[in-house]
């Protein structure tokens, strides 16, 4: 990974700042919430205490003790309806309150198990709105069977599905009203009046109204009846018939025989709402509920949440989306309308007050709610539950504002830090890259050392590295130049003792000597001659370097030089043929012909040494179009270059050839080639011939070289 990338990743660590900020904001929120909850609990407790022993204020029933018993399976707990639903048989304007439904089957059960709720054919939901009791019925049926339109409602053969309402009147009598119809839509309420002599007669009951419609499962019906007709007992029964005039299948909370209501209607006292309203404040909702959690009455002043606007809202919503998720998950979604939270209700029914935070189902609104039990007396049984709810928007807003500000600031800081790190990293990377390039270029293609390094002046660690490199390269340069000149120096130092040996041998040769002594003398002479040749070869590089220093550059024709040289070599080396390619046209060049010839000498020496007798050595002049350089190639057949030697072959004292004993070699020839090529602004290279039949040496020369 690049250093820059790593630094940037490091810079991202500053994102821990907003995280820490969020943690802080959350803690702040939690403590605020705790304080708020505590206050709200006290309020709930106070109101609950004011209702202590006032079951008359809580429940409309005058039924005495019955109201306080827990709701049984036949008891209906109407939910507050607001607004009043339309009597059209449809349930779309009813609240979704799953737990307030009662279900009934053909077999009356004391306590329907939860599993039966779904399968039992009749489901009843009651609700109150103003002076009316509303009943919603969902009946699972093969079809809605209508009364015959032209027959008497009393004729059993004409009877279809029929809904019975049975209830106790305020005067304490039992009364029944039924609803049926020969069309879908409106239902008429009617009752059977028994006249004298037991004659039954139909009478319209205009106070009871309703409507039914078919539904995918069967049918639904909506009924309305004034609360003033009903005391505390109430029930619903459906006479379901498979066909008109068929045997009825009674299902509901009325006794099938006498149609007496088996359950209670647990509704709030009419004064309860106004009683609660006196405690209501803006932003607070007060709910009174039965111990089972069914809402009796509520004073609702929770405001709609104020929609945030603009970028601020967008940002804060974004933050909340990222950061509030975990927090939201801890909260319980506020239960459906008409019930208070079950856990709160249960704990209140057990006599404990509690508080909790809820999110509304759309998650847009936060509510903190406290519940307290309403008791019959200070230690008596629980009459109901009082819940006080308050919007949590106030401190949520506070937290959001702080959080948004914090996040904005820390994000800005992060951006700044990351930006600075990016700049710093880039600078660092550039410097490192420069160092790398300098170190790459420190050893040139021709083996020279450049010790000039960038950044040596800077005082930091990179500067130290650069200085270290520079010093190292200087030492290396010194060492290589020492090695380069070593041969020359050595040759010079050895020459004096060699001269002593030689001159002594020559003097000895003039003395009268025995035959064996002459032979020894001859051997010693040969040895000293060999030594002399070695010295000559060793010093030649130094001499060439000096010659190069003093070389004279003139305008000449490289093609003519090559042609002439080839002619000369063919006389000097009769055992080889020499060919010149590409020298047909003149190639003007500003160069030192003497040096060029020496260079060719060395190349030809090399080519002759490695090529078989009678082979051809080819000179080729390569003149690339619009190039400031020309190349001279010398090809010879013979062995290929030793592996890995192509770059080293031009180094001083490098040699790959097997010594043939006739002439000493120090690997200086090709080094001289390189020196001369460099003096001409070029370089030398070697490669195998494309068909691997031999070797090609190529020397690049600038056509115009600045004088030294």
């Amino acid at each position, binding site marked *: 990974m690049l250093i820059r990338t790593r630094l940037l990743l490091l810079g991202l660590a500053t994102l821990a700042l907003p995280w820490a900020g969020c943690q802080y904001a959350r803690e702040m929120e939690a403590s605020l919430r705790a304080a708020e909850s505590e206050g709200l609990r006290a309020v709930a407790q106070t109101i609950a205490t004011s209702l202590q022993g006032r079951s008359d204020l809580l429940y409309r029933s005058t039924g005495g003790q019955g109201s306080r018993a827990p709701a049984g399976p036949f008891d209906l707990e109407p939910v507050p309806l607001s607004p009043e639903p339309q009597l059209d048989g449809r349930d779309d304007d009813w609240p979704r309150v799953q737990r307030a439904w009662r279900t009934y089957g053909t077999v009356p059960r004391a306590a329907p198990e939860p599993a039966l709720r779904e399968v039992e054919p009749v489901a009843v939901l009651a609700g109150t709105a103003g002076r009316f009791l509303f009943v919603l019925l969902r009946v699972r049926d093969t079809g809605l069977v209508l009364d015959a339109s032209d027959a008497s409602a009393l004729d059993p053969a004409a009877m279809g599905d029929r809904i019975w309402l049975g209830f106790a009147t305020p005067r304490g009598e039992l009364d029944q009203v039924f609803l049926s119809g020969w069309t879908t839509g409106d239902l008429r309420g009617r009752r059977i009046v028994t006249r004298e002599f037991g004659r039954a007669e139909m009478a319209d009951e205009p106070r009871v109204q309703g409507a039914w419609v078919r539904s995918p499962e069967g049918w639904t019906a909506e009924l309305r009846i004034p609360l003033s007709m009903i005391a505390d007992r109430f029930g619903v029964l459906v006479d379901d018939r498979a066909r008109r005039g068929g045997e009825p299948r009674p299902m509901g909370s009325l006794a099938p025989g006498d149609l007496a209501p088996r359950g209670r209607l647990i509704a709030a006292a009419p004064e309860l709402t106004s009683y609660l309203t006196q405690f209501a404040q803006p932003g607070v909702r007060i709910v009174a509920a039965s111990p089972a959690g069914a809402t009796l009455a509520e004073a609702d002043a929770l405001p709609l949440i104020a929609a945030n606007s603009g970028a601020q809202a967008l940002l804060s919503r974004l933050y909340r989306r990222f950061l509030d998720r975990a927090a939201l998950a801890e909260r319980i979604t506020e239960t459906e309308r008409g019930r208070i939270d079950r856990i709160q209700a249960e704990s209140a029914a057990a006599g404990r007050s509690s508080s909790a935070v809820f999110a509304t189902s759309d998650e847009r609104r936060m509510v903190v709610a406290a519940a307290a039990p309403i008791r019959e007396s200070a230690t008596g049984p629980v009459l109901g539950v009082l819940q006080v709810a308050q919007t949590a928007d106030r401190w949520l807003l506070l937290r959001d504002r702080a959080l948004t500000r914090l996040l904005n600031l820390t994000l800005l800081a992060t951006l700044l830090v990351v930006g600075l790190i990016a700049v710093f990293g880039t600078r660092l990377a550039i410097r490192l890259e420069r160092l790398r390039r300098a170190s790459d270029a420190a050893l040139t293609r021709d083996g020279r050392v450049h010790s000039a390094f960038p950044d040596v002046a800077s005082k930091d660690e990179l500067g130290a590295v650069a200085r270290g490199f520079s010093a190292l390269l200087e030492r290396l340069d010194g060492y290589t130049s020492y090695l380069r000149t070593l041969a020359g120096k050595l040759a010079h130092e050895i020459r*004096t003792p060699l001269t002593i040996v030689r001159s002594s041998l020559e003097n000895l040769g003039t003395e009268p000597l025995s035959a064996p002594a002459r032979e020894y003398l001859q051997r010693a002479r040969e040895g000293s001659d060999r030594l*002399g040749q070695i010295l000559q070869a060793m010093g030649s590089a130094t001499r060439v370097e000096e010659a190069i220093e003093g070389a004279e550059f003139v305008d000449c024709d490289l093609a003519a030089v090559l042609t002439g040289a080839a002619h000369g070599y063919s006389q000097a080396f009769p055992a080889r043929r020499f060919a010149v390619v590409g020298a047909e046209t003149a190639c003007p060049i500003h160069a030192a012909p003497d040096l060029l010839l020496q260079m060719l000498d060395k190349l030809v020496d090399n080519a002759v040494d490695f090529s078989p007798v009678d082979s051809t050595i080819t000179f080729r002049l390569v003149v690339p179009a619009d190039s400031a350089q020309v190349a001279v190639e010398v090809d010879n057949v013979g062995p290929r270059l030793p592996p890995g030697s192509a770059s080293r072959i031009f180094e001083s004292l490098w040699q790959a050839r097997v010594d043939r004993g006739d002439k000493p070699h120090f690997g200086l020839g090709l080094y001289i080639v390189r020196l001369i090529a460099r003096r001409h602004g070029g370089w030398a290279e070697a490669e195998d011939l494309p068909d691997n039949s031999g070797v090609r040496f190529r020397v690049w020369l600038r056509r115009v070289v600045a004088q030294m």
Partner: protein
Amino acid sequence: MKRSIAIVEDEAAIRDNYAAAFAREGYSVRTYANRRTATAAFATRLPDLVVIDISLEDEPEGGFELCRTLRNQSAGLPLIFLTARDSELDAVSGLRLGADDFLTKDISLAHLVARVNALFRRVDALTRPADGSGAVQRGSLSLDTERLQATWNGEVVLLSLTEFWIVHALARNPGHVKNRQQLMDAANVVLDDNTITSHIKRIRRKFQAVDPAFDSIHTAYGMGYRWLDPSC
């Protein structure tokens, strides 16, 4: 009377070997190990020829110093530099100081003695009037092999012995290319290619000093050099 040769050489073994070789040839030889003793001796009496090593004991260029002193004493005294150092710079400096020849210690004793003999011949010839024998005339060039002297358009070109023999080898057969080996053989020296090249360069310069239009030594690339005589 025996001709006297002075050898100034700090290396005793070489000095004595040279002395023995010259003595065998019938010369009287005096040897000096450093500049101080040599200068002192030359102040009282000059030898007929001096062979000087360039680096003398603690003086790396003591030979040049001595040469300068001797040239002040005598302009015509034959002087040969002998050195282990064959670098270009040494050669140029030595000849500028007016040495008659400049030889590396690679040279064999026989060649050295031949040189000395040739120099003495030249000294002798210069004392006699020119008789034209052994002269080579090539256009503007005339070479006197007795006096080892070259003239161009009648003007003397001061060549060292080596240079003289190179010019002689070239001019004897104008138009013929002489390669480096042939030139070395002619001059009785063992030189490497670079030294030949610089000798040729110096010869051209010496002629050009007399005649700026001089262009008779032609380089045959890869082969050697030849003498071009515009007049023939």
